[in-house]
């Protein structure tokens, strides 16, 4: 269960180049990317926070839920985008739709991406109330509203139980080995 106010980022097509600009992709570890999140929107040329950008509004400090427009996370496959979102403190991203690679990267990093109809997303962007997101029951609650969201059962399990995907696949190693024996390429 995640409970916090939401951070509204009302733009469609937020691409991974904006989530983490390329000048920060040179690190060889997975941690410490939160400070680069939305860097070029968040800071000016002198690295001073831009007042008008939503992440710099103290009202949203401590928010764990990011709400944005259509096709969130499009562009580059860089998982650094998911690492930055998680490291900054967001555990849930809500949008009308997500780009495929980013959507997949979220689950690998303990982020829950939720797609909901545009009207609901727009309503969520406007609320100042605390929003409760419960993965187990697949519901979002705020302002005495209760909204159901869909999620693939196996991905839900992975997030809830924090499973190691590679270990799960390796349980099927016999199948992989026998597949390889008959495979031509």
């Amino acid at each position, binding site marked *: 269960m995640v409970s916090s106010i939401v951070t509204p980022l*009302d*733009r*469609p*097509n937020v*691409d991974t*180049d*904006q989530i983490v*600009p*390329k*000048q920060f*992709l*040179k*690190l*060889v*570890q*997975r941690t410490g990317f939160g400070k680069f999140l939305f860097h*070029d929107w968040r800071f000016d*040329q002198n690295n001073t926070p831009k007042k008008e950008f939503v992440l710099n509004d103290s009202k949203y400090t401590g928010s764990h839920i990011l709400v944005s*427009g*259509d*096709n969130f996370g*499009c*562009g*580059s*496959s*860089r*998982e650094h985008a*998911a690492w930055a979102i998680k490291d900054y403190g967001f555990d849930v991203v809500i949008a009308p*739709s*997500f*780009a*495929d*690679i980013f959507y*997949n*990267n979220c689950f*690998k*990093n303990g982020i829950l991406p939720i797609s909901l109809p545009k009207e609901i997303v727009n309503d969520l962007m406007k609320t100042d109330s605390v929003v409760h997101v419960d993965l187990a029951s697949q519901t979002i609650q705020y302002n005495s509203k209760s909204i159901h969201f869909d999620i*693939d*059962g*196996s991905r839900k*399990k992975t997030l809830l139980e924090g499973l*190691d*995907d*590679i270990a*799960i*696949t*390796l349980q*099927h*190693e016999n*199948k*992989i080995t026998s*597949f*390889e024996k008959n*495979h*031509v*390429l």
Partner: protein
Amino acid sequence: MAKTLFEKIWDSHKVDEIDGRSLIYIDRHMVHEVTSPQAFDGLRINKRRVRRPDLTFATMDHNVPTTNRSLPIADQISAMQIKTLEKNCQEFGIPLFGLDSPYQGIVHVIGPELGITLPGATIVCGDSHTSTHGAFGAFALGIGTSDVEHVLATQCLVLDKPKTFEIRVDGKRKNTHAITAKDIILSIIKKIGTAGGNGTVLEYRGQAISDLSMDERMTMCNMSIEGGARAGLVAPDQKTFDYLGGRKYTPKNYDELVEKWKDTLKTDDGAKFDKSFAIDASQIIPQVSWGTNPSMTADVTESVPDPAEFAKGDSSQEIAAKNALQYMDLKSGTPITDIKIDRVFIGSCTNARLQDLVEAASIIKGRKASPNVRVMVVPGSQQVKKKAEEMGLDKIFKDANFEWRESGCSMCLGMNPDILSRGERCASTSNRNFEGRQGAGGRTHLVSPIMAAAAAIAGHFVDVREWV
């Protein structure tokens, strides 16, 4: 039952099911320096090996310098990332085409060039433009670093089956030099949008696709991801089989494989796609992007659009278009051909193969770059560079005051020192015009190589049909 090409590849690579999802075998895995270090670390932490180093191939491309290779790399952090890949490849026994290799280049240029890419194969890489390899009839998709680790450890991926999306391009281009594969794919993305292909694999079909060379098909498939697609592919034909014959990693039983592929690697008559879109190639003219995503593109004969007109009633698109015009410092109603440029970049996994360079050079012979424009030509690989030099293309470029550089991703994403300065405007043959993509505050217009070369000479965009 009649099947699409994609469904055949999917079915023939399905190893098992895990919790309702599919375990898909991966035939070829390409690795580069930026998205792999954390994956190798993960293997070490969990004491895992690389299951099939013989099916894994590495090169360094994203942040390598495109200047003199005999000099040390000035950027210490880039140097560290490159060294890390060398160490990882050595430790795990993975073949590496390093900085001093004659086969070094952009991962999606060298895969086909070396015969690593094969029809009917599944191919992955930690890079979204892996869709390029689909030009050979492969199912090729970009993945994140956790999945890179997953493939290194298991040679498989757990995937949900994408839907199929037929893209028909019928008819013939009116001018096969001035109107390129880049113009076809930009025209498609303009219509289907940047999310139009989400969750699908595109199959490009029709007369205009059959007419394309392999280099051109790679340009098409490369940009499938800009339409949001998981992958894009073209059914292999004789051009495909001829291209891949006799390359460094072409399988020994290649002729036998080709005979089998000829019968099987195509969409069956009567097979159904989940979605379809059609466009007439004879109606396509040169394209220039004006905004901050690839769907914000216009015909070269048009003007910068009005945001409301562009948005067609979608308020968030209207805001996005307004923001784009502000970022790009453009006014609605300005003819595209009046837009002046400061820089030209001819390169990237979209447009840095031999044919791209031949087309760009064809238009500049005996001309000079506009004195206000700095032009960089960055071949896609060392092999492309060598062949171009054998043809004398380097001399044509240099005579026109175009810089002729070493191979790499370069200014497509500007991880190395090749970047735009704040406010600079660039005609670029790359794939993304996102804010800051080519350098913070830089402004990118996506075009074909021949359009980029013509703009370099004129100092502004021109309708290259008037030149050829």
